[in-house]
């Protein structure tokens, strides 16, 4: 486990997958099953992709049989369908509907409770130190980039969020490199993927040989190296290592969507009144789906409650969003009443003010907000349109 002040999960050993071929190992599907078993034997809760409700979703898994073998997704703006593949690939899907956020920063948590019928009521905070460590299997490069962003948000300053920090410090990450891109992916232009660049304990690339998956694996931490050694894998061949890197490079090259990030802060700061905002607001439902699925959005509301008698009090935290009116309610009303101002807040925060606040973009190019927007609003299109109209005026 990483030291408490460390925002990365584990000390990197071999972050860039460009070392000598001998360091790459080869795993097969039965090895992945053993790996999952090993993690569970060590007390980890293993979270990986699995087919559920016609999506490839991150969830609790107990064996490799639960991986989405032979499935992938077809996505577009506001559209998602799972589809059969003609091979047994387990990691052919790209971004899942949800990210690691749900597990590191749970959507609803009790923060404390107090019982007023006691003589000296003291708030009771739940003990989280006993929760099982999380092992994520199959996160992508953009997911790791998003975790690095949330590390800054929740653990980067003087005030560390203990809920997040407890889950995060215990987490082990086995990532996969994407060997294809979805039409909604734009990580390449955000510099966050699909190539893995550290931030994980083990990194894998899936190759299909004779219809069956094999995994070229590199280590990213001591703990990852130990885990891998337990499986005693053979080295990957030079050809396999080259083939793996080739697929990742092609995945990057084939990305259809791009975000031009140059001068993006100024673009936003100089275009608060751009008419494009009104245009997108006519389509936006202010439903908050984009902020819910975004792996970096971190907003929550604090709610206080009592029971009928008023003796038991409790404070809860739940995911909230700048799209709700309650979220920006101060005395007298909401400061962002118009849907226009709420859409503008979301995009300006993600792409501009986030940089001032945390020294990084709030967007990692995963495309989730595009896929899961019920009316298919696409932020890359909005930014391009903003640029166009800024140039015209």
């Amino acid at each position: 486990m990483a030291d408490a002040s460390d925002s990365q999960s584990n000390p990197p050993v071999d972050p860039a997958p460009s070392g000598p071929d001998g360091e790459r190992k080869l795993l097969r599907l039965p090895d992945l099953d053993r790996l999952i078993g090993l993690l569970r034997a060590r007390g980890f809760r293993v979270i990986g992709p699995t087919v559920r409700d016609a999506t490839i979703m991150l969830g609790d898994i107990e064996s490799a049989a639960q991986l989405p073998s032979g499935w992938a997704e077809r996505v577009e703006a506001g559209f998602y369908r799972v589809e059969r593949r003609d091979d047994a690939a387990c990691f052919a899907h790209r971004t899942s509907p949800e990210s690691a956020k749900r597990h590191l920063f749970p959507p609803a948590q009790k923060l404390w409770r107090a019982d007023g019928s006691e003589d000296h009521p003291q708030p009771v905070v739940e003990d989280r130190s006993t929760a099982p460590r999380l092992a994520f299997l199959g996160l992508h490069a953009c997911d790791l980039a998003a975790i690095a962003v949330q590390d800054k948000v929740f653990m980067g300053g003087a005030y560390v969020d203990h809920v997040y920090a407890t889950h995060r410090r215990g987490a082990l990450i086995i990532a996969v490199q994407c060997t294809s891109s979805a039409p909604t992916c734009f990580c390449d232009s955000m510099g966050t993927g699909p190539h893995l660049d550290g931030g994980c304990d083990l990194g894998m690339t899936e190759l299909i040989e004779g219809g069956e998956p094999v995994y070229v694996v590199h280590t990213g931490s001591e703990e990852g190296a130990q885990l891998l050694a337990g499986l005693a894998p053979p080295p990957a061949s030079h050809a396999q290592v080259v083939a793996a890197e080739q697929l990742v490079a092609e995945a990057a090259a084939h990305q259809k969507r791009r975000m031009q990030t140059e001068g993006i802060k100024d673009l936003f700061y100089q275009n608060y009144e751009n008419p494009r905002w009104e245009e997108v607001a006519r389509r936006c439902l202010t439903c908050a789906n984009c902020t819910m699925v975004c792996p970096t959005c971190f907003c929550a509301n604090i709610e206080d409650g009592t029971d009928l008698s008023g003796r038991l009090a409790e404070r809860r935290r739940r995911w909230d969003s700048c799209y709700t009116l309650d979220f920006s309610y101060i005395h007298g009303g909401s400061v962002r009443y118009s849907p226009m101002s709420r859409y503008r807040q979301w995009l300006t925060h993600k792409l501009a003010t986030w940089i001032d606040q945390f020294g990084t973009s709030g967007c990692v190019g995963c495309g989730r907000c595009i896929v899961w927007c019920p009316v298919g609003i696409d932020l890359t299109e909005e930014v391009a349109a903003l640029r166009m109209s800024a140039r015209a005026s």
Partner: protein
Amino acid sequence: MGRKHPKPKLAVWKFASCDGCQLSILDCEDELLDIAGAVEIAYFPEATRAVVKGPYDISLVEGSVTTPHDAERIHKIRRASTVLITIGACATTGGIQALRNFTEVADYVRAVYPTPQYIETLSKSTPITDHVFVDFELRGCPINKLLLLELISAYLNGRKPVVPEYALCLECKRLGNTCVMVAHGAPCMGPVTQAGCGALCPSYNRPCYGCFGPKRTPNTGSLAEWWRHHRDMSEEELVRAFRGFNAWSEAFRRASEAHEQTTMK
């Protein structure tokens, strides 16, 4: 008697409705004793015949106003109540019976009743707020009993109730549901509907029917536009989508009427 702080008196009133919301109160089985311990249930014919005279501290009103007699009765209840809370879609937006508001009710009366002259009914089913001042409107068809408990707890403890006004999608996403609109192509009303039901339908892979009525600043036009283009929904289907339990709420009424006008063109 003789207590310095008598328990607040609670009354439950029924107007035109199916009694489903009152049943939600009785459905608070585990909590019912706590409620009875915290308030005096002074008038609740659905549950007890005992009647304690007013005035009442809290009145829960179920149902919409559909007869001249009810239109008078609600004023008496308002005068006898410190706080008046409407419960459910009928009391809050007119309910499913407000479908009559889009037609000629007299035609139905003639078609259904052998002696229509005995029927005294108003041409529209209207929400309580059209008649008297309402302190709080609890949405839903039926209401969520947990929100009712929250509302009563908040009132008794003098705090602000935690009742959401945002889109159902937040509740749905927090639960980790698959979005039935994006992943199954189902016409889900969630993005324009107020949260509070616990995302019941999407949790069972069904689209939301809008039982909790419009959320604040609902964009019904954009949602309908998407359905028209990506699901090939006809104008008639769009009219029906917005004409459910909350058909007479301003936002859904405007939406359905707009599509109805297009069908008549």
